[in-house]
């Protein structure tokens, strides 16, 4: 299948989903406090104190969300900006703890989240790969084993030995994707990560995701390209202002969502929304 631009749209063939539970989310609330300021400073804090203002805002990112995901499922997550999709991912990954409720995850998770790849741009791609892997809990030996495969799959040539500040965003995305899928995750969390990278890499990425699905890995997928959600997921959930609105067949959930959002389900919307 191709979109109007003539680019292939990733598609995954699904085997039967196992009845083993991979992820349980029960009565989950996530509330956090954050500042309105982008860069909070002591100076501003003192100024605010003088004016008696507060800059802390409480965000109720998720409210009473419950669902289960079986092994081998590709779960699409849709919703408007700020609906809590990314927070849900990060809670499942164990980065943000629940405020109430419980999340139980069976197996190793690997994250490919949208908020940036390669954490230290002064360091080389190689160093970022090793450090990311060590932080995620792999041993040095495990990383030694995988490093060549990761570098080969990312296919960025000599750039791997150069500081990441010299990378294009596509190159950084390829490296991040390569790391995430080569950690042999039982659960792969992907947040808007497929939008970067050229057509060739997209195809390669889809192929690799197919392999993971065939090995009954579980996947959680956030994308604003609704077509991707329909093509790739076996199930879909829709979040709205932190609440779980609907869960079911991807086509049906996307239909309900687009209707709710009062947008026509045109091809452009499906690809870009």
């Amino acid at each position, binding site marked *: 299948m191709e979109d109007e631009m003539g680019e292939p749209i990733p598609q995954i063939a699904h085997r039967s989903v196992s009845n083993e539970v991979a992820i349980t989310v029960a009565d989950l609330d996530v509330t*956090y*406090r*954050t*500042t309105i300021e982008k*860069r*909070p*400073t*002591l*100076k501003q*804090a003192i100024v605010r104190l003088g004016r008696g203002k507060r800059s802390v805002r409480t*965000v109720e990112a998720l409210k009473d969300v419950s669902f289960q995901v079986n092994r081998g499922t590709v779960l699409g997550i849709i919703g408007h900006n700020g609906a809590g999709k990314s927070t849900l991912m*990060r*809670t499942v*990954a*164990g*980065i*943000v*703890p*629940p*405020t*109430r*409720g*419980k*999340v*139980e*995850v*069976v*197996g*190793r*998770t690997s*994250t490919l*989240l949208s*908020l*940036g*790849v*390669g*954490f*230290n741009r*002064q*360091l080389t791609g190689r*160093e970022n790969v*090793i*450090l*990311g892997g*060590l*932080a*995620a*809990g792999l*041993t*040095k030996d495990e990383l030694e084993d995988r490093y060549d495969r990761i570098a080969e799959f990312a296919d960025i040539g000599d750039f791997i030995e150069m*500081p990441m500040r010299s990378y294009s965003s596509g190159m950084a995305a390829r490296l991040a994707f390569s790391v995430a899928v080569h950690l042999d995750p*039982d659960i792969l969390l992907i947040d808007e990560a497929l939008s970067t990278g050229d057509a060739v890499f997209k195809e390669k990425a889809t192929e690799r995701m197919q392999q993971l699905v065939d090995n009954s890995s579980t996947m959680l997928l956030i994308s604003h390209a609704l077509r991707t959600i329909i093509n790739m997921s076996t199930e879909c959930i829709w979040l709205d202002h932190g609440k779980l609105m609907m869960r079911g067949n991807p086509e049906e959930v996307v239909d309900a969502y687009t209707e709710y959002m009062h947008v026509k389900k045109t091809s452009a919307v499906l690809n870009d929304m």
Partner: protein
Amino acid sequence: MSETTETVSRPVQTFLPHRAGLPRLSTYFVTLWRRRHFAIELSRASMRAAHTNTFFGQFWLVISPALNAVVYFLLVNIIRGGNSGPDFFLHLLAGLFAFNFISATMSAGANSVVSGGSLVLNTAFPLLLLPWSALRTAFFRFLPSLIILLAFFSYFAFIGPHPVACDAAGACVELNTVHFSPVQLMAIPAFMLIFVFAAGLAALMATVQVYFRDTTQFLPYATRIWLYLSPVLYYADQLQPWMLKLEYFNPLFPMLGIWTDTLARGIMPPMSWWLGSAAWAFGTLLIGTFYFISREREFAVRI
């Protein structure tokens, strides 16, 4: 963090709300230990990035503390108008190097979490590894300065002039009292306390920097004042009695005191300094670490 139990070779992780703002500490510290290689690698990589593994990079690690010491020595001698002996110069060197270690740990620690960027946002791991990695880097940058200290010490002890001044009654005093002594071994536990203190400070500064991003801008001024208030540019026992009372509130007073007295002067400092240093060091470690861990869950939404 998570509780991990094995079922069919797949670990089950359960994420529950934190109790009193803290994760389960046993699991936290076990994970911290298991992932220590991350802190080590991060420190190595950032030292590589700063070219400190090249010959000239290493060279600067030795030269810059030496130049620093010369500047302060001239400053102190000119201001005092007198010429201090070699033992004071060694005290100054030792004090300055240890102080630089502490201030470097503070500033690197402050930056450790905010510069963690997408790793902090995207990966679940004990973030305490970040300030600890900064601590390791500061320690390895401190080590070469000990070479300078050893070189000067050896010079004064073995080669330098040993003038003797005698009064009319015939009682003589040696002006250069520098010599190696077993008391200097006590500098090792003294430095350990400084290290523990620095570990606590690094975690503390890392947390504060997340909430107030201008902390690193204030820091150089604060550390400079702290340097002048600490017994580096003078001997601790030269202070006026009323100032000595104030120094109870300065952790570096006993801490640098035991370090320079044992290492540079070869004299055993009073027990009260040891106890005071230990209390400050472990107190700071405890407070810094727990403050960090209790705030850690917020870092991923504040960066």
